[in-house]
């Protein structure tokens, strides 16, 4: 009987070690390493006029203090611009250590290395940096005004201006029977993984090799950057990603300054060196996201059909732009959502501010785009007096319209073409799941506590599985273990489980016999990284392709051993056998033995592969020209373009008019990421995404004062939600396969977070009647807005 692992709720392979406390995170390594601490700027914008380390000399255990002046070669250059773009006319990236000027609170000025972290912190406290403060540009209003400049050679603080257009939006809006002009804004937040960043490096002088452990989302990216900056051969740098306690985007940045400085120090000192980010450092030096302002002109007819959409928005990229303009490109290209646009023009301006650099955070520009589009749909419905779900239904792309080409360029530089989907099906499901039709009766029923009920809805499309490629290596060992390696990393998503499920199906083995390694450049040196909801699509298909190649080789070798035709063979339960004759078979472990012709036996089983074990064709080489020893294969998956997942959220909320507190009574998620590899893991991703979405809508924000100080840079003041504040979403799946990849799958990692602010804004507005044009919203803010409405 064949076991199908794909689609099963297989328990996570990772959890056994994690729940026992046996996980190996960054800080579990390098207990004897020297420790680094950083002196960081207390100013948002200032010139550095002097650094005096005299008092630090008295700290026993100090090993060294390093400033920009100490950095050699390319390490003294600005860090790489990761994603150049022709429209990024003024790219600026930071130095590993500030060179004469700091541009945000938290920018690293000096690195202290000492015998342990306590000593390093003590020494760092004694270092005196003289600053000459400069005017700080804080927030988009100040950046757009351009009265002060973040970088004196960047006029107007403008890093980039980009326009994309489908059709003729201006003409369409001008000709539309009805037009609305709207403004929407989303505030800045950050990823806040429970485990912050960290780097541990060891230089091996005998072998001339650098080994780096880093809590990253891209080990190969770190490897390439470090090798280049430290001017080492690529093959002399190994990067290992240990267990990672969450990334959510911020750890895809590479190299962070610490990721090059710690390896450099390890080599300089010929000692292990480690740095582990503390929570304050995470707030002020790990990247942020989300801050954007948007202006919309939408033209529509009396039925609510969108005829033209013009969007201008302003993106806060923070002090530097190492990630280029990918984030606003994502907003621009994902804003249209599941709707049939014929005339859409979007222009964004990316602006520098004296705040922490901005790079993707789970959702990555999509929550903002979704908020703008979904709020616009609600406004159109309001203007026409039709139901919010109905105005959406009238504009959804129909299943027979795929592939749907927007004639725009997506974040991967490839065409923005939706590959497949059933959006009306999603709408039907979410309406049923949340109880949309029965809600008005629910709202009208007497409320015991005086709270006001509201219902909201938001829809999204998410481009997932962006290229350029991922690869995998699958190796059946002679002990029957199937060893799988893929280069992208895991931050806790469950890659060891889902990739094992895929390989188990392809090879006909038990999932427990498949062992997956991720993010170790020694095992697989070519990879891109884990971001953009791409791991399952990219590495999932790569491991499938590599496993299929192994299967083909196993069948070929077994056919020879069994004297059967390859097409007559099947693999089940780890045995290659003749179909219909299970007794006539050979285990994969033995096939692995036979795949590697031996002179020297190493076990009783291996004797079968030695040169006198069986007669052989004297005219055929033991390893023919077109073959390789070993039952293993390597393959890559590279998509022509992204595949587009979709979903819809709906929520019922209760708002307390006395306090402004919002309680989420029901939260419904309908999600389509194609065939589910493991429904339990997909649901886990949705749960986590919704949690971050609710946090971003109702609790979390980064509060800067006018001087550029982040005034809530701790978990005392930055309100990460507890479980008690979070709904347990009701989830329904729709599975529309992608035609773009062998497994037909789409990404699921970010989806949960994308529409939450839009959905809750819609529900709160429905409940209390205030205009929800900006998120997040706190109870005091909502209370004040409600009072304004009451006063009129």
């Amino acid at each position, binding site marked *: 009987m064949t076991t199908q692992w794909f689609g099963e709720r297989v328990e996570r392979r990772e959890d056994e070690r994690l729940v026992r406390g046996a996980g190996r995170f960054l800080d579990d390594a390098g207990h004897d390493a*020297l420790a680094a601490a950083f002196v960081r700027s207390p100013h948002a914008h200032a010139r550095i006029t002097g*650094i*005096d*380390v*005299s008092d*630090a*000399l*008295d700290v*026993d*255990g*100090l*090993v*060294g*203090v*390093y*400033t920009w*002046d*100490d950095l050699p070669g390319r390490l003294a250059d600005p860090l790489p611009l990761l994603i150049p773009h022709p429209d990024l006319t003024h790219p600026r990236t930071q130095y590993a250590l500030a060179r004469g000027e700091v541009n945000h609170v938290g920018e690293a000025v*000096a690195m202290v290395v*000492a*015998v342990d972290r306590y*000593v390093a912190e003590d020494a760092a406290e004694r270092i005196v940096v003289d600053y000459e403060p400069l005017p700080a540009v804080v927030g988009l209003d100040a950046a757009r005004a351009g009265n002060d400049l973040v970088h004196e050679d960047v006029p107007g603080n403008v890093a980039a201006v980009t326009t994309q257009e489908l059709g003729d939006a201006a003409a369409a809006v001008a000709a539309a029977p009805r037009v609305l002009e709207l403004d929407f804004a989303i505030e800045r937040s950050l990823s806040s993984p429970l485990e912050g960043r960290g780097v541990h490096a060891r230089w091996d002088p005998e072998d001339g090799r650098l080994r780096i452990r880093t809590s990253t989302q891209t080990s190969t990216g770190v490897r390439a950057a470090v090798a280049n900056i430290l001017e080492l051969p690529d093959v002399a740098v190994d990067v290992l990603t240990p267990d990672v306690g969450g990334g959510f985007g911020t750890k895809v940045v590479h190299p962070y300054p610490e990721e090059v400085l710690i390896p450099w120090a390890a080599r*300089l*000192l010929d*000692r292990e060196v480690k740095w582990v980010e503390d929570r304050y450092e995470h707030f002020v030096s790990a990247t942020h996201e989300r801050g954007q302002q948007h202006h919309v002109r939408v033209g529509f007819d009396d039925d609510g059909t969108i005829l033209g959409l013009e969007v201008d928005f302003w993106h806060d990229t923070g002090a530097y732009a190492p990630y280029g303009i990918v984030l606003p490109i994502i907003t621009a290209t994902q804003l249209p959502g599941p709707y049939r646009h014929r005339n859409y023009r979007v222009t964004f301006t990316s602006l520098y501010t004296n705040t922490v650099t901005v790079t993707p955070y789970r959702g990555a520009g999509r929550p903002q785009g979704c908020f703008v589009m979904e709020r616009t749909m609600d406004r159109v419905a309001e203007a026409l007096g039709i139901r919010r779900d109905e105005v959406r239904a009238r504009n959804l792309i129909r299943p027979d319209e795929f592939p749907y080409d927007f004639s725009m360029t997506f974040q991967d530089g490839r065409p923005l073409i939706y590959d497949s989907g059933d959006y009306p099906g999603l709408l039907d499901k979410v309406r049923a799941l949340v109880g949309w039709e029965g809600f008005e009766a629910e709202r009208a029923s007497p409320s015991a506590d005086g709270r006001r009920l509201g219902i909201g809805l938001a829809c999204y499309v998410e481009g997932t599985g962006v290229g350029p490629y991922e690869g995998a290596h699958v190796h059946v060992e002679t002990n029957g273990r199937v060893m799988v390696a893929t280069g992208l990393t895991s931050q806790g998503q469950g890659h060891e489980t889902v990739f094992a499920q895929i390989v188990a199906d392809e090879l006909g083995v038990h999932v427990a016999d498949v062992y997956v390694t991720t993010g170790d450049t020694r095992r697989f040196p070519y990879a891109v990284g884990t971001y953009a909801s791409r791991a399952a699509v990219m590495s999932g298909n790569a491991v499938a392709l590599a496993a299929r190649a192994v299967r083909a080789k196993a069948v070929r070798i077994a056919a020879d051993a069994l004297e059967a035709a390859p097409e007559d063979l099947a693999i089940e339960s780890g045995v290659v056998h003749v179909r219909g004759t299970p007794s006539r078979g050979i285990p994969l472990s033995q096939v692995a033995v036979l795949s590697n012709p031996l002179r020297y036996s190493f076990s009783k089983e291996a004797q079968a592969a030695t040169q006198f074990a069986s007669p052989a064709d004297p005219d055929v080489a033991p390893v023919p020209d077109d073959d390789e020893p070993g039952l293993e294969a390597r393959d890559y998956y590279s998509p022509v373009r992204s595949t587009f997942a979709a979903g819809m959220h709906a929520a019922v909320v209760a708002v307390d008019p006395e306090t402004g507190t919002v309680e989420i009574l029901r939260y419904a998620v309908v999600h389509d990421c194609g065939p589910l590899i493991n429904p339990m893991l997909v649901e886990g991703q949705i749960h986590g995404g919704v949690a971050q979405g609710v946090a971003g809508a109702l609790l979390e924000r980064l509060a800067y004062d006018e001087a550029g100080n982040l005034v809530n840079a701790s978990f005392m003041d930055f309100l990460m939600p507890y479980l008690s504040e979070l709904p347990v979403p009701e989830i329904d799946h729709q599975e529309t396969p992608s035609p773009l990849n062998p497994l037909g799958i789409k990404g699921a990692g970010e989806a949960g977070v994308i529409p939450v602010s839009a959905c809750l804004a819609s529900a709160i507005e429905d409940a209390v009647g205030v205009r929800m044009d900006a998120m997040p919203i706190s109870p005091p803010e909502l209370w004040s807005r409600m009072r304004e409405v009451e006063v009129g």
Partner: protein
Amino acid sequence: MRTTFPVTVPAEVWPRLSEPGAVAAALPGGRAVTADGDGTLSVVAEVAVASVAGLWSGTVTPVDADTIRISGAGTPGRLDLEVRASPDRRQLTVEGAVDGPLSTVGGAVLAAAARRLAEDLLANLADPATATTNPPVTHGGTGGDSAGAGPAIDTSRAAAGRSRRRLAARAGAGAGAVVVVVTVVRRWRRSPR
């Protein structure tokens, strides 16, 4: 490395700068200072900067009225430095190559240690009572890698005695900078004003 820092030389210090024994006693970490007769000084000193510690020995040679050259090596590393006095004799600039363990502590540390060393040396010469912690002069150094012993980066230093820590803290940016200060001040006395 390159660093510039102010120095103050009290009048009563001048005579003591011509006494190798006084300088040896005043030199933080100093073990020996020997005049070779041709204007060159040979020095042995214990150096401790951050976690780099060990014996260093070398020579200091006059270059011109305002500049001396210092070179030598030891466990802390090899120094090849020039030291220039400013025209008003109120600043010193130390510039040159630092190799070996001392080169790993960072330029800001070297600069801070050099300045502290100069200040401590001159203070010790001004008040000889503060300079009694050095061991008696035992020999004149000749320079070279053989001087000194122990680990190049002594991270066990925290376990050492308090007096050694004080000494280490004072020893500053290496014996080179120490000798530089001594020699330059001596040459200032000789140079025409």
